[in-house]
């Protein structure tokens, strides 16, 4: 690969890392600060992706869409759609231990997958949605990529600052107190439920935004673009490895895991075809094993949560 190719690849990777960083930040609000187990990240991601795609794409026959609305509208709608789905689920499940939320979110992701595949009039079915505009998409390849990277990086920065501010506020302190002490949480009752719901909905909205950024980057989206289990799982590992409860850790984890995942894909693609298929699944095995190793040997992650005066939690 020549220098330019390498630079191209680096920018391409950086954009995806940014998108994953948003997902990891969203999960950090839910899990890292609040202790909520979202096992359906891919579902919220997909909802955001399709919401923005439908609102902003060029007209196409056989499906809804073609409104060609401004991108910002699409992105806001992506966040709103993901939040709207998160709300009732959280409302029902957050009264119980996080196990129930985990089960329900697996279900939500599954239903969303079914809807995307089945409701062709809405999502284009297996053909997906194409003709999705990309900001600065008229520029040459490299400047266009760099411009998109700038947008993604800005949004990650904004999300980071917002989450940091929120976490340092009384709201964030209370959330951590609840997370670390289920008894205290139970004693606080209704109010806690409302706070947890806010965290769940806000985190899901960020995941929706990440979905939107993903489709505008690719200019198209199909049901195959998102493997629910692996996508969800990668983000979990990013957060745990980076350091759950630490926003910088979440972003760092997104970068580290995405680079390892992509490089390992480059490597396995070079294998002879007889073993290439096996190697693909062996990678999945290794991802699962990585989580176990992190949980066992470095549960606090690379950048542990900073919490003055309190014993390390996880």
């Amino acid at each position, binding site marked *: 690969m020549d220098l330019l190719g390498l630079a191209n690849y680096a920018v391409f990777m950086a954009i995806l890392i940014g998108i994953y960083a948003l997902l990891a930040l969203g999960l950090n609000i839910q899990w890292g600060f609040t202790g909520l*187990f979202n096992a359906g990240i891919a579902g919220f991601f997909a909802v955001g992706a399709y919401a923005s795609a439908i609102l902003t794409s060029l007209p196409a026959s056989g499906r809804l869409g073609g409104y060609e609305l401004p991108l910002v509208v699409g992105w806001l709608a992506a966040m709103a759609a993901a939040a709207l789905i998160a709300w009732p*689920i959280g409302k029902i499940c957050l009264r119980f231990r996080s*196990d*129930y939320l985990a089960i329900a979110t*697996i279900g939500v992701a599954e239903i969303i997958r079914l809807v995307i595949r089945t409701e062709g009039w809405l999502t284009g079915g297996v053909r997906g949605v194409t003709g999705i505009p990309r900001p600065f998409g008229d520029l040459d390849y490299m400047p266009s990529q760099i411009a998109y990277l700038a947008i993604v990086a800005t949004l990650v920065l904004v999300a980071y600052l917002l989450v940091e501010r929120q976490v340092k506020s009384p709201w964030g302190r209370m959330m951590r107190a609840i997370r670390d002490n289920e008894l205290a949480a139970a004693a606080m009752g209704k109010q806690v439920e409302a706070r947890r719901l806010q965290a769940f909905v806000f985190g899901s909205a960020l995941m929706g935004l990440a979905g939107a950024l993903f489709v505008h980057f690719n200019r198209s989206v199909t049901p195959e673009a998102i493997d629910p289990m692996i996508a969800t799982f990668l983000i979990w590992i990013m957060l745990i490895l980076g350091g759950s409860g630490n926003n910088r850790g979440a972003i760092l984890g997104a970068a580290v895991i995405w680079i390892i995942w992509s490089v390992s894909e480059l490597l396995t693609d070079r294998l002879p075809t007889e073993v290439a298929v096996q190697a693909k*699944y062996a990678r*999945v*095995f290794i991802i*699962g094993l990585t989580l*176990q190793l992190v949980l066992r040997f470095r549960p606090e992650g690379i950048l542990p949560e900073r919490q003055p005066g309190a014993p390390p939690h996880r």
Partner: protein
Amino acid sequence: MSFLEFLNFHLVPGIVLGSVYAVGAIGITLVFGILRFAHFAHGDMATLGAFIALALVTAGLTPWAALPVAMAAVAVVAIVVDKLFYDYLKARPKIMTVMASLGVALMLRAVVQVVFGVDPRTYATGIVRPDDYFGILLRDRELYTLAAVVLIVVGLTLFLRHSRWGKAMRAMSDNPDLARLSGVDNRKVTMLTWAIVGALCAASGFMLGINNELQSMMGWQVLLPMFAAAILGGVGRVEGAVLGGLIVGVAEEMSIFILPAQYKAATAFVLLLLILLVRPRGLLNGKVL
């Protein structure tokens, strides 16, 4: 539609599917009740059991002879998985074990995919015609499935009701602190629970496979219906898991009367949310974690 048609095309398949869910849900309810976490590797452990049975069938065993061997094998796998990946997390919040089990799910599935590939497989080839029992059409495999489920449920119930260690398991589920004060060895109960749960996983995977086909995602796809069944019946209640399994199975087969067939898989999810909304303890008053 005649009554017999309804029976043969909807109710009977629903009961067969439901009894398979029941076997899975019993395992989930045991882990939920005794070890107190949602075990997300349950479905993929079932997949592993189904494929171990397939390997035995390929080696020359008949499918129903392969079943007990596969059950024993997955019982061992479950104990090993616990020792390697869950046991060291026991002092940490239980949700960490839930997460670890999600990782185990991915690993088990990857093992199946690497060893057996991703193409659908079957235990036996050829089309089996159902026999007519007074108008009710049943295939042998369906009959054997129902019989095996009854055998498993009765055997397990007797064990839990009357044996020393069965009572210890119930005590641990009921009141873990008091069980420890009474001298029940937590480690032994945990190991025993995993052995039983592993065997149940293998049985449910095998029955799914013999009544349909085997593929690497089969277990993950039944995880939600099995959880719905366990919670619907009441967490910690074996009879509840059976009842819940039957309800979910029949409801899925009936769902086509009100939902497009593609959304059959959504039935369990709807039931799950409904029960959490109106009666989180489940039909038979189980635990709420």
